[in-house]
């Protein structure tokens, strides 16, 4: 019985349709039970997130099962099946396994490597388990998929580099200072973005935090919120001398930190690096400071450029992840293939052995004078013939089963040797 997955995702279905189809847990439970009660699906898991709606299952006729599942779903959600049908994709067997692994490993996500999808797949699995719609086929599939996802996260860097501007700034700071523990931060201006960046820095151990703002009260408020210290605006230069990282986001029309100011400040720092994260537009820090040694200045465009580079790096890592997934699909199919084809091999062997034993018995009955040696030789001869004959078909069965085509070969063998109906 083929394993299949059918559904739609962010790549082919518009968000309007996806949000219409997204199902909350109660309804999902109902849907699972309904599908299980019908006779087209054997095991079933429904994954419903804002980016995808997918039905994983085991069905004799995947086409029918898919239609049944989405008919149910559309009825639940009040959507025309006709609107959904042309967008649906279906994957069978090996393709379905690969799809499940890629989804769990966040290789099929809108944002490569995003961490939420694995949790969502786990929830879908847990819910199906609670509804008892999981059996001996989907259980190994999903537990293997969780393993693959974990390996992809730890063995590739697909989820390592920041994809938001504020996290990219934190990573840059780490590339300059190594650890951020005990690095002093100055906030100039009190925008939401700079507060967010400051919070990320604090999470990494940055301390102490100073806040300067033209409005003293505002500086005090933000300082309190960040457990920092408010600094009077006209003591800016002193504060610059004391800190390692400066986050700026004032609404000033002219730069508030000039090259001259930074040149003077750097003199007294004995080579301690100074990192400007300039989120303001227009910019707060004169671009001329780039020419100064040990001064690093990233404005909003620079940070976006870093994020773009990080995304490209994720895409490169995704290729490595795909190779890993491919290997795991092979392993999974090999294991499944063995599980599936072993009963056929056992009954085939049993059948031939039965014939052999019967024929040997008849022959020996006609040769009462045969010496023990002759009897042993006849036994050995017949066994050898059976084994020789079985060798090629068994090898072929195992191989095709590992390649995902074991079912039809198995059926053929059952037919040919009259082994009875397959389980």
């Amino acid at each position, binding site marked *: 019985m083929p394993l299949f997955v059918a559904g739609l995702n962010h790549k082919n279905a518009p968000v309007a349709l996806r949000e219409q189809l997204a199902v909350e847990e109660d309804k999902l439970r109902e849907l699972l039970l309904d599908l299980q009660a019908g006779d087209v699906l054997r095991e079933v898991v429904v994954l419903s997130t804002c980016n995808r709606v997918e039905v994983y299952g085991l069905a004799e006729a995947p086409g029918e099962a898919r239609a049944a599942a989405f008919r149910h779903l559309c009825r639940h959600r009040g959507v025309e099946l006709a609107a959904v049908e042309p967008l649906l994709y279906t994957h069978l067997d090996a393709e379905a396994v690969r799809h499940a692994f890629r989804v769990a490993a966040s290789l099929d996500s809108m944002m490569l490597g995003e961490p939420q999808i694995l949790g969502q797949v786990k929830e879908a699995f847990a819910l199906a388990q609670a509804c008892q719609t999981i059996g001996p086929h989907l259980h190994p599939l999903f537990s293997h998929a969780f393993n693959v996802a974990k390996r992809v996260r730890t063995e590739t*860097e697909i989820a390592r580099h920041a994809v938001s501007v504020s996290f990219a700034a934190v990573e840059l700071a780490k590339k300059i200072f*190594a650890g951020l523990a005990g690095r002093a931060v100055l906030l100039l201006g009190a925008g939401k973005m700079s507060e967010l960046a400051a919070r990320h820095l604090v999470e990494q151990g940055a301390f102490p935090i100073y806040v300067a703002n033209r409005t003293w009260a505002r500086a005090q408020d933000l300082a309190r919120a960040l457990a920092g210290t408010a600094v009077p605006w006209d003591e800016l230069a002193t504060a610059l001398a004391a800190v390692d990282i400066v986050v700026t986001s004032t609404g000033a029309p002219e730069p508030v930190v000039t090259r001259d100011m930074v040149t003077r400040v750097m003199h007294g720092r004995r080579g301690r690096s100074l990192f400007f994260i300039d989120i303001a537009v227009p910019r707060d820090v004169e671009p001329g400071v780039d020419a100064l040694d040990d001064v690093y200045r990233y404005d909003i465009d620079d940070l976006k450029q870093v994020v773009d580079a990080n995304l490209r790096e994720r895409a490169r890592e995704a290729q490595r992840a795909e190779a890993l997934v491919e290997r795991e699909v092979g392993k999974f199919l090999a294991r499944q293939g063995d599980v599936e084809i072993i009963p056929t091999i056992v009954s085939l062997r049993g059948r031939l052995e039965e014939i052999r034993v019967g024929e040997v018995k008849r022959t020996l009955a006609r040769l009462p004078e045969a010496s023990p040696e002759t009897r042993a030789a006849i036994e050995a001869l017949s066994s050898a013939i059976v084994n020789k004959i079985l060798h090629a078909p068994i090898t072929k069965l195992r191989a095709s089963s590992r390649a995902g085509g074991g079912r039809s070969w198995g059926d053929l063998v059952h037919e040919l040797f009259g082994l009875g109906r397959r389980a």
Partner: protein
Amino acid sequence: MYPSLISLAVVAYICAMGLALAYLVQRQDLVHRLAVLATLAGWAAHTVSLIVHAVERAAPPLGSLPDAIWVGVWVIVLLQLLLEHRTGVRVLGAFVLPIVVLLSLKATTTGRPGMLAPALASAWIWIHIALAVIGIAAFVFNFVGGIMYLLQERQLKTKRPGAFYYRLPALATLDRLTFRTLALGFPFLTVGLMLGALWARTAWGSAFTFDPLAFFSLVAWVIYAGTLAGRAAGGWHGRRAAYFAIAGFAALVLTLGAGLFLPGRHGS
């Protein structure tokens, strides 16, 4: 047995270099582990080769300049294994092992005339060579740290993160590496050179007769002394320190080149 041990070590170092470079490109944990294993295997064979050599000759395996370089490589690989483990800078091998391979090939393919002239052999001369070798090994890391610093600094200054941005450690880490290796190598080089000069006076009557190797090593010493003074007094660091690390190492390369190719007391 002895030459085959040397070949084994050199081949292992070449494999380790290939793997370390592959790790720089691919960043697969397995590749890194294999690179470390190959390095360890090479170093083990190398260690045995040195012991066998010393036992055969009943003298330290430092009798000629190629021999001394071979011992230097041994120290470099040891430091490489220790530093990579301690600093967690896993790409270090990709930078150090090419130098290891070059030096190994030079040391093992240059004819080894063997022993020092009996007139020269004394405990002091062995210590002179040993200290200089350890100092030079430390400066290999000073140099590599400087190179890595400049690469990473370029990435951060140009604001276009490329392969090195992701692979190399933080500037602060690299600056610490160059400083610590300078502080480690300098005393060894200093005492090694002083012993050499003292020995020269006893053996030849003058400490400062011109010898190409001695000349360039003095140049290197002056560069390193200047960097160290600059670091201590002027707060030199980062890019400037990296430039000096490269200059000092260039002088050391000339030192070895002079010893290998020019006639002089250190040559054979």
